[in-house]
């Protein structure tokens, strides 16, 4: 029995459902030394902004139980250098590309969309809305339904209808489903769940926050159940909206759990820091697991955890 392992995120098709996670693969160059980038679903690049950014002061990371905090501050080369150097290199590798964009104002996101809309080789845009909105007292876009909607609306209008938009949501909200509804309503083709959770470590020697930026994003296996819950809730409320799941996935079992919760694809992030081959290894483990459970396609396993027990016998026919 052959398995159809392909997946779609809105109109974008991918031959496999494992992706890198934004900020955990840079622009792919380093990981290419460990596996062929075209062998996974897509490379999700580190969030790019309009201008080059030096990022936050060091220390930028702290290991925590089954996870880590990072406080990078979106260090990056800016959109011009990214389009001139990183995209053509990834295209040359035959990799599929999801470009993650980040901004400080609604207009900045739209500017990035305008710059990227005619660049060949991009499969989708992931819109990282977990950034402080400088026009709204620094409140994170993703924590406010109105700001979240405004960003996606601006990107959608600028892009036109072609390039799929995946809105990456923060779990640091009271009701993630209501934010998901807003961004979908504004024109997002799918949602990425979840971004890191905001955390802090205090160094008990210096008796001060350990990170240069004081707070950081918590990632790794410690947050996986939060991600599974968010994916499950959003899939339940919006079953037709594709979800790119992520948060602490470190093996095929973890990825399968997200597929069952309702994810159409799974991004591998922090696991790559510990194992540069994590994405490709998780992909083959997932493939074996999906087959072993009797599914003939990856898509038929998406959201399976939501089904009634008696529907299980029907999966052969899907």
């Amino acid at each position, binding site marked *: 029995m052959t398995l159809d392992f392909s997946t779609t995120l809105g109109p974008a098709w991918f031959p496999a459902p494992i992706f890198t996670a934004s*900020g*955990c*693969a*840079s622009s792919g*160059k*380093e*990981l290419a*030394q*460990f596996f062929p980038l075209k062998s996974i679903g897509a490379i999700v690049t*580190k969030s790019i902004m309009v*201008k*080059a*950014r*030096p*990022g*936050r*002061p*060091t*220390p*930028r*990371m702290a*290991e925590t*139980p*089954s*996870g*880590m905090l*990072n406080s*990078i501050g979106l*260090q*990056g*080369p*800016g959109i011009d250098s990214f389009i001139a150097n990183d995209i053509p290199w990834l295209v040359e590798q035959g990799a599929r590309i999801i470009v993650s964009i980040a901004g400080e104002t609604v207009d900045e996101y739209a500017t990035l969309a305008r710059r990227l809309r005619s660049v060949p080789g991009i499969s989708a845009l992931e819109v990282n809305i977990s950034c402080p909105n400088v026009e709204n007292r620094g409140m994170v876009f993703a924590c406010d339904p109105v700001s979240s909607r405004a960003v996606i609306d601006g990107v959608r209008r600028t892009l036109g209808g072609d390039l799929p938009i995946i809105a990456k949501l923060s779990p640091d909200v009271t009701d993630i489903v209501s934010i998901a509804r807003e961004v979908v309503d504004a024109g997002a083709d799918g949602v990425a769940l979840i971004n890191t959770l905001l955390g802090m470590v205090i160094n008990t020697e210096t008796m001060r926050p350990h990170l*240069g930026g004081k707070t950081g994003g918590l990632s*790794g*296996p410690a947050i996986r159940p939060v991600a599974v819950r968010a994916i499950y809730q959003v899939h339940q409320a919006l079953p037709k909206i594709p979800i790119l799941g992520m948060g602490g996935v*470190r093996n095929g079992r973890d990825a399968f759990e997200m597929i069952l919760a309702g994810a159409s694809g799974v991004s591998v992030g*922090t*696991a*790559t*820091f*510990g*194992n*540069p*081959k994590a994405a490709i290894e998780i992909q083959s483990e997932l493939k074996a697991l999906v087959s072993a459970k009797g599914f003939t396609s990856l898509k038929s396993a998406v959201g399976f955890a939501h089904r009634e027990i008696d529907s299980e016998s029907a999966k052969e026919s899907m």
Partner: protein
Amino acid sequence: MSTINRYAQQISAHVLSNKRVGQYHQILISVGEVVKHCRPGNFIAISVGGENSGMVLRRAFALSRVSDRGEFGGTLELIVAPHGSGSRWLCSQTEGAVLDVITPLGDAFGIPTEPVNTLLIGGGYGSAPLFGLAEVLKARGCRVDMILGASSSPKIYAPLEGKRSVNSLKIYTEDASSGIHGRVTDSLEEIIENDSIDVIYSCGPMAMLAAISSIAQSAGVVHQCAVEESMACGIGVCMTCVLPIRQEDGSIAMLRSCIDGPVMDGSVVEWDRVGKVNEVAE
């Protein structure tokens, strides 16, 4: 911006021996063919804690000595201080244990083409990569003087066999428990002058590297230092280990010490800006 060491490979390495040397562990591992590309200055990133470990990040160690001869083929010697949970796990690994490692990572110390006078300065177990470097420099005909410093005598790493590869060795301790009372930088100007030092190589805490850089610059001596900045990945994807480096056009770039280092030209590191917000973009 440079790229990941093109010889870096993820491999399984066997622990051949694990000996206590003072406060440190001297761990010898077999790595096979990849040893041919390992140079003094390069580092290794090791997965710790086993399969179900809650420690999600690798630990980085400087390669202390590299050997492609002997009954085990290619071997690497690492000096590990059992300070945190990851390094304690590593120090508990016994002969026969299998480690998941990535090496060689980072750049290497530049070796002079001419036989020149070199001074190697190590702080604490930062001396580890300097003994392998000393052997390479000696083979190149260089004069090799070494000075090591630490807060206290047990924190000096100076194995007997290492002492043979240097022309002279001075030890400094801050508590006067061995050698000279003081710090490695106390008489550095005189040493540079009296021994006609051409190149300084150093490895150790950032404050020590910063102090050496300032003295080396005034004396007009080349200073190659191996930095120690905390890293999550070691392969250039996480952007945590950045240092402010002055570019030729005067701008400051936040460069990754895992890829553009760990060996850096001490005179271009903006030591005063380490840990500060940087105004200038890359």
